[in-house]
């Protein structure tokens, strides 16, 4: 028969409210990254609970895999998406907020009430005998005998996940990157030899030498190919008209 020692009870009464509060906090904080950290805290708490409940292996895995790997993945993605992004917590879908609150109270209340009502017909057994040869060993025995099939199958799941991530994220090169030789040939066999000498540098002959300012050609017009295609694509190219020659402002004398 299982008896719960006082230290565990103390630990529970300390950590359980903290975990619940952290979870609540996760709902209520604006920044996703804070949510992630609070979730990590909940998970660590749970890991402690696991260990306290004779699930040593799970506790470790919880910390290493879940908190360590999974949560880091979350954080990584959060970084990618923008770590500063903060959610507005005002509800935009009409009627959802009251429903959510009612649901919270109802679901939680009913669940708690039902758990309180439940009986199993036997007391808590405890894992002392099951873990007799050690938690990890016992688990291993189960995993590699009784549950070997799902264990094998899970590997397929992992491959799926990897494949899936690759499908969605992997940029296959759609055109082969031109070799230097090809580039050279292209330059010289082009319509004109204008580009044979290489592209102009940005900012040349201009008042600005920033990378987003196109070079001015000898006739005073802007040379768009002097700046990075990426900047062009993003529309970050400045208007070259204001940099035409002859518009030098003489009123401002240079400081000496």
């Amino acid at each position, binding site marked *: 028969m*299982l008896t*719960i020692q006082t230290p565990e009870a103390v630990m*529970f*009464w300390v950590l*359980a409210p903290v975990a*619940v509060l952290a*979870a609540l906090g*996760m*709902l209520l904080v604006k920044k*996703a990254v804070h*949510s992630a950290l609070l*979730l990590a805290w*909940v998970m660590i708490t*749970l890991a402690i*609970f*696991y260990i306290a*409940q*004779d*699930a040593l292996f*799970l506790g470790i*895995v*919880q910390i290493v*895999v*879940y908190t360590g790997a*999974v949560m880091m993945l*979350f954080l990584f*993605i959060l970084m990618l*998406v923008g770590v500063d*992004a903060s*959610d507005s917590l005002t*509800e*935009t*879908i009409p009627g959802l*907020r009251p429903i959510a609150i009612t649901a*919270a109270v109802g*679901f939680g209340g009913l*669940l*708690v009430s039902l*758990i309180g009502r439940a009986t*199993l017909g036997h007391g*808590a*057994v*405890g*894992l002392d*005998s*099951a*873990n007799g040869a050690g938690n990890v060993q016992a*688990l291993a025995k*189960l*995993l590699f005998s009784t*549950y070997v099939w799902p264990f094998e199958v*899970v590997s397929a799941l*992992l491959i*799926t*996940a*990897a494949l*899936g*991530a690759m499908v*969605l*994220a992997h940029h296959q090169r759609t055109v082969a990157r031109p070799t230097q030789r090809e580039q050279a040939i292209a330059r010289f066999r082009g319509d004109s030899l204008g580009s044979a000498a290489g592209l102009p540098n940005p900012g040349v002959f201009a008042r600005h030498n920033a990378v987003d300012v196109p070079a001015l050609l000898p006739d005073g017009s802007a040379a768009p190919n002097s700046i990075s295609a990426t900047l062009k694509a993003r529309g970050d190219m400045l208007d070259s008209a204001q940099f035409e020659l002859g518009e030098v402002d003489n009123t401002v004398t240079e400081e000496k």
Partner: protein
Amino acid sequence: MNPYNYLYVAGLLFTIGAIGVVIRRNAIVVFMCVELMLNAANLTLVTFARINGTLDGQVVAFFTMVVAACEVVVGLAIIVTIYRSRRSASVDDASLLKR
């Protein structure tokens, strides 16, 4: 203390996670709430393993973690894809499909 107390905690965490899915708009946070729910389930499993005196619950919890990891990979990949297309990770913005 009664080990059932863990069940209450798990129930609360599950509830909080479920509510989070409903009220949070950031897809990543929503997904984190799902993770919270899975963790709550795991806590329940571990607690029941202790109550029942068998390790099957722990095995299930272990599988859950593995599966959850896979789910996270796929899920985050989808979220990133959406983000790249829309420049937004809000689940509310993805509401073209309706009625």
